[in-house]
């Protein structure tokens, strides 16, 4: 596994091929107006991110600016409750409060090498928007963030943060006014400003090379888990690796170094919203079928006529009708297993982690915690949960939920 350049499809079957396909999923289904930009990225991304100078700058920023490595914490009370060793990979402790910044640091360094002057991004929960606004402030680049009008309301603190950081937040008012619609608007902006703009996609989605590029930037998560687990347990791998999945960037980063290690069970947690069969859900892989969304072939929620279905989740970051193509491949080839947690189950998990471990997780992250009781765990099992972000941004949602539950 040491030579990551040699993409040999028979050994590395969960890495993309030359055209960005993970099995039948992936590729680049984009209008011609984006071809030059996407082709440029396809051509240069690997050589740029493997350059020693790039790697050094990336590693230094992750260490000194983001605060990496993020701790791997043995949560004792959770462990007692679930009868296994539950380790939390603390991405919530990163600068800006989530895993998203691993990717934005990488992409801003890439954008500078491509001499792009203007940065755009989409955001759901606002964590990727904040992480993009942050690196743009750091590098002095102009920043425009598209965000669904519904999400602007439910993630208000992150909107305020983006503005303080100097970014312009543009509401997306089409469709269900959430992450899918923000992504549509960002892609349209990119078409209109193709020459001077780099689009920092925030998840492991989009046309090739984005899913692989974002995954590689996020793979610092599994790289650290490896040595941290070795130190703590004497083994460099867990038995279970659990992550929530919206588009799938924190999951992809947490899985990366274990994709081809069959000793590790890969577990994804999707957002069931009000329930998988309620019609108000974002359980994409369970409800989805093969098709194209935002430039890649993957699993998505759609009608028989190929119209994309508006998803629903209380959690803005998981409220997306598609899933990254690597995950679609992992799921359909049975390498990864999916569970879905409802809004209520996720809220219970927020309350539990807050009270039991003194950590308030993001609502997205809570979906990963909420499905721990579905795993068939035994006392010796080592479980790593990717704690993708912290819950500060969700306080309003939490307070409203608790007030309603207490009958106020």
């Amino acid at each position, binding site marked *: 596994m040491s030579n990551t350049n040699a993409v040999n499809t028979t050994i590395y079957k969960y890495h993309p091929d030359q055209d960005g396909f993970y099995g039948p999923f992936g*590729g*680049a*289904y*984009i*209008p*011609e*107006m984006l*071809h*030059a*930009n996407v082709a440029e990225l396809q051509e240069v991304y690997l050589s740029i991110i493997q350059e020693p100078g790039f790697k050094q700058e990336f590693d230094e920023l992750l260490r000194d600016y983001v605060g990496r490595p993020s701790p791997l914490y043995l949560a004792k009370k959770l462990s007692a409750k679930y009868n296994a060793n539950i380790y939390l990979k603390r991405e919530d402790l990163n600068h800006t409060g989530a895993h998203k910044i691993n990717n934005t640091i990488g992409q801003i360094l890439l954008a500078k090498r491509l001499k792009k002057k203007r940065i755009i991004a989409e955001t759901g929960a606002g964590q990727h928007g904040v992480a993009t606004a942050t690196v743009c402030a750091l590098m002095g680049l102009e920043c425009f963030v598209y965000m669904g009008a519904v999400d602007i309301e439910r993630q208000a603190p992150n909107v305020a943060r983006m503005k303080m950081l100097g970014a312009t937040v543009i509401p997306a008012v*089409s*469709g269900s006014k959430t992450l*899918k619609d923000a992504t*549509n608007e960002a*892609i*349209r902006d990119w*078409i*209109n*400003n*193709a*020459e001077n703009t780099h689009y920092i996609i925030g998840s492991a989605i989009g046309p090739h090379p984005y899913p692989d590029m974002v995954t590689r930037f996020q793979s610092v998560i599994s790289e650290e888990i490896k040595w941290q687990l070795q130190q703590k347990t004497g083994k460099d791998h867990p038995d279970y690796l659990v992550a929530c999945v919206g588009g799938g960037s924190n999951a992809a980063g947490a899985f990366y170094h274990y994709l081809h290690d069959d000793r590790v069970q890969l577990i994804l947690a999707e957002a069931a919203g009000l329930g998988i069969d309620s019609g108000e859900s974002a359980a994409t892989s369970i409800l989805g*079928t*093969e*098709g*194209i*969304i*935002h*430039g890649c072939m993957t699993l998505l929620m*759609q*009608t*028989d*006529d*190929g*119209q*994309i279905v508006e998803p629903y989740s209380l959690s803005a970051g998981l409220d997306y009708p598609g899933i990254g193509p690597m995950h679609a491949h992992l799921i359909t080839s049975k390498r990864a297993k999916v569970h879905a947690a409802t809004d209520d189950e996720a809220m219970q998990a927020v309350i539990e982690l807050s009270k039991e471990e003194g950590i308030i997780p993001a609502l997205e992250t809570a979906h990963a915690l909420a499905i721990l009781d579905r795993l068939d765990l035994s006392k010796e099992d080592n479980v790593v949960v990717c704690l993708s972000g912290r819950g500060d941004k969700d306080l309003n949602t939490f307070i409203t939920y608790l007030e309603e539950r207490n009958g106020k």
Partner: protein
Amino acid sequence: MGNNSIREKISAANGRALNVYFTAGYPTIKSIAELIRSLEDAGADLIELGMPYSDPLADGITIQNSSKIALENGLNLKILFEHIAEARKTTSIPIIMMGYFNQLLQFGVEDFLKLAANNGVAGMIIPDLPMNIYERDYKSLFEKYDLSISFLISPMTSDERIKQADRLSSGFIYVVSQSSITGKKGEISEAQKSYFDRIESMNLKSPRLIGFGIHDRKSFDTACTYSDGAIVGSAFIRALANSEDISKTTHSFIQTIK
């Protein structure tokens, strides 16, 4: 029908072919056949019939909104083909269907092409279907059903890809006038003119129609001096927005352009 009908029409138009886009099901489902008939009567040379999509990535707000209304009206592909069949009883203007690839994929690409051909459709425009995937997986199906395809090029498209589009397009080359989504207004700039010149000097074998931002007589005339004709879309949708009489609106709109 098929490939030849489009090229014959363009060549008969003597460098001023007018291709008019409208979103099927907008303003109403009933208007589909009436619009096809009116456009033929009013002197359009080709029709680009948009299949409304929930997430039209290459389209501006006008076509987005018309698509949304068309879907709310209950249009789906099955109903659309019924209305095309109805219109075909009394019209012969070549119809080119424009849609996003996911729509064909879910319908079944071969089922779709077969129905399109059986209902007298002449060709397809699928902006997010990559040329190499078309060539590898679908070209033979298009040939089997005698349907043309027209690929897009933009100011950022390399000469090599323009040649590929020329080789693979059996309808026309869709010259996107600027790097943008649909619906921009404003005059055609010098930079655009030199891009049109560059394409013209490549001596491509396919006819070329310029589209995106063509919205009035002036922009149509300018586009025609650099190509075999032009495509008007959002401007026609905007005209339909306030229409009380589809046929009248169509006739007076075409008169303002051609």
